[in-house]
C-alpha cells in the first residue's frame, strides 16, 4: 500500500512530528487539519487573498465557515426540531466541493440542513438563487431559480470534479 508521509511543525512544542497516513484517505488529512485549528487560537488566518485580476480567493474563508457549521451542528437537535448531526462524510464532501469551486463566483452561504446535510446557497434576490446540497454519497442535489417561473433542480454525481450542470447554473445566475 502506498503511504503519504507528512512532517508537521508543531506550534506547541519544539521540533516536528512525522505522521504516516495510508493513501489515499484524505479524510484523515482534513481531520488533522481541523483538529489543529481547534488547538490553536481559533482565529481565522489567511482568509482572503486578492489576485491580480481582483478575484477574491474565498476558499479559506468558506472552509473556516464550514468548520464552524460542523462544530455547531455536530450534536443532534441543533435546530430545536431534533435535527440530525452533520456527519463526517458530509463534512468532508462539502470541504472537497468548496475547494473545487471557482473563486470567480461569489462565496456561498454554508447552511446546515435538518437531515444532517450541508447546503451551499448563492442568493441574489427573490426568485434568483442557486443551491446545492451535499449527500455524503458522492452525489449532490441542486436547485436553480432564474426568475419566478424559471426553476430547475436535480441530482448530479460528485466524485472528482464539479459537473457542468452546477457550473453552468452558477454562470447563469451571475451572468
Amino acid at each position: 500500500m502506498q503511504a503519504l508521509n507528512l512532517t508537521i511543525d508543531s506550534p506547541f512544542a519544539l521540533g516536528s512530528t512525522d505522521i504516516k497516513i495510508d493513501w489515499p484517505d484524505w479524510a484523515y488529512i482534513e481531520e488533522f487539519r481541523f483538529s489543529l485549528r481547534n488547538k490553536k487560537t481559533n482565529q481565522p488566518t489567511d482568509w482572503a487573498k486578492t489576485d491580480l485580476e481582483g478575484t477574491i480567493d474565498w476558499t479559506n474563508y468558506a472552509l473556516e465557515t464550514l468548520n464552524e457549521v460542523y462544530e455547531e451542528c455536530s450534536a443532534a437537535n441543533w435546530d430545536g426540531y431534533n435535527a440530525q448531526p452533520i456527519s463526517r462524510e458530509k463534512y468532508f464532501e462539502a470541504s472537497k466541493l468548496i475547494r473545487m469551486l471557482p473563486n470567480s463566483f461569489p462565496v456561498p452561504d454554508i447552511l446546515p440542513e435538518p437531515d444532517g446535510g450541508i447546503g451551499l446557497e448563492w442568493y441574489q434576490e427573490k426568485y434568483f438563487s442557486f443551491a446545492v446540497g451535499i449527500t455524503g454519497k458522492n452525489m449532490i442535489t441542486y436547485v436553480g431559480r432564474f426568475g419566478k417561473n424559471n426553476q430547475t433542480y436535480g441530482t448530479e454525481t460528485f466524485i472528482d470534479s464539479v459537473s457542468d450542470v452546477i457550473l453552468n447554473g452558477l454562470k447563469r445566475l451571475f451572468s
Partner: protein
Amino acid sequence: MNQKNKISSKEATTRYIFNDRHYAETKKRIKYPAFMPKKGETSVFRISNLDDQQIWDIGENYVAPISSRTLLARGDLIALDIFDEGLEIEADTKNHKLHANIVGWPLKEAKIKLHAINLADKAICHIKP
C-alpha cells in the same frame, strides 16, 4: 379533519427559528433550511387573530422549552403560499391547539429543497425583540 381544524388559504402561520444560520438578521431573510421537513413534517403554528406579542409568547413559552433552544426569529407565511407549492397543512392539536404541520413533501431531495427555498423566499422574517 373536522371543520374547525380545516386551514383556509388566508390563514397566517409561523415557523419559529432557533438556529442563527437559518436567517439573515441584516437582510431580514429566512434561509431555506428553516423550512425543510423532519420526517416529512415542518412544524408551524397558526397565528391568525394573534397580536405580535402573543405570537412571540407561544414561541418563547411553549416551543422554546420543548426545543431546549433559545428562540431567535420566526418566518411568517400565509397558508396560500404553502398550498401554492403543492404542500398541505395539517392541524396537529395534540399538544397545542394552534400547532400544525406542513406535510405532503415530495420524496426527491432536490424537490424538497426547491419547495423549502420557495417558502423561505415568501416568508416574512421577524427577529426576536
